[in-house]
């Protein structure tokens, strides 16, 4: 199984790719979910954001066999908090 650092890097890379925002901006500025929707060139609303979460969760399952459930979060949640939730879910699932 991957360690914490490997999982974290995998989730960060995958999510960054799906929202099409550079990691330096996404995580460097710790964007909120509302800011991600606004900044991403491929997003219109929260449904697009959920789809990016779903794709990230699916990639986790496909690559590592880890199944996480998607969180329901307010739009002012920073991406670092989302990452923490994903990692916590993955740790439980693993």
């Amino acid at each position, binding site marked *: 199984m991957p360690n914490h650092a490997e999982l974290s890097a995998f989730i960060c890379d995958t999510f960054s790719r799906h929202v099409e925002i550079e990691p330096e901006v996404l995580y460097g500025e710790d964007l909120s979910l509302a800011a991600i929707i606004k900044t991403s060139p491929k997003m*219109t609303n929260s449904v697009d954001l959920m789809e990016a979460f779903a794709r990230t969760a699916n990639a986790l399952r496909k690559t590592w066999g880890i199944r996480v459930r998607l969180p*329901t979060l307010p739009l002012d949640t920073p991406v670092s908090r989302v990452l923490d939730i994903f990692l916590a879910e993955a740790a439980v699932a693993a």
Partner: protein
Amino acid sequence: MNTDLRTDPLATRHARRPTSTKPAILDEIHRAITEGGCTLTEIAWEQQRLHEARRWSVVELISNIDLERLSEGDRVRIWNAGRAELTTKPGADRVARLADAECRRWQGEDDVVAAIMQACGTWSRYWNEEEAHHEVVFNQLSSFLGLPAIPDVEFIEYRKVFPDDEMLRTLTLLVISEIVAAVNYGQCAMLAEDPGLRALFKQVAADEIQHMGYFIAFAKGLVDSGAYQAKEAFAVAHFFIREGGDLYGVKRDRIEERDTHVNWWDHLEHGDVSTPDAIERKQTLIFSALKRITGISVSSVEEVEDTWMDLVGC
């Protein structure tokens, strides 16, 4: 007399009796166009027939209500219904505009999808008119009952037009909005003791179910065309029914602040008056709608999420 069909279009016409079958929603719109050769003129005729068959009078139904018999719960539910219904006009205006824009985008690329879009935009005029009945009947009842008037500034706020979204998502959201409204009105009818008020709530609930049927038919038409993906319908359904999702309305722990538009289900004010949510009934109707739109069966919240995630892929 010119009988050349190429130069005299009147020569192609022949007398025909009005349709004698009971008016109904065209459930298989994609097949009706592709296999049945159904034209937009014929579709508009079916829409008109059903609209006329379902018309009712606001003045008449209000006159059947004994205002003295209404409970505090009835009064609160009437007031909330009137305010919530204000948001339907911008919804219908948006559908009319979006459907026409999508129609023109698809013309030449997929003329069947273009026709479905135009049929949807055309029907939105009936939807708008029928929803006007709901808005006016409840707000006028509120006025007769001496309930707090909605300030103009709030009226205008509730008229804000929703932001555009992908068409299948938009239609699915409207399916769910109609389901929530229909079930809520059913609850209101069940709780009303006055026969006139009960009849009104039942009439409005029946209208909402009919609107749901139309939105399902257009959404199914888009999926049947292959131009729109089932995942979009599941995405919106999941958004509503997930834990803490929009289906729970004002009872959610937290509701997003928006300045773009008003979601009526986020602004119901019941105070101490209790109206059952009937969440399971709403979920069941959403599962059924997903089946009718996409052909995919689901029977739980978890299955909706699992199916949606499978459809999304990596």
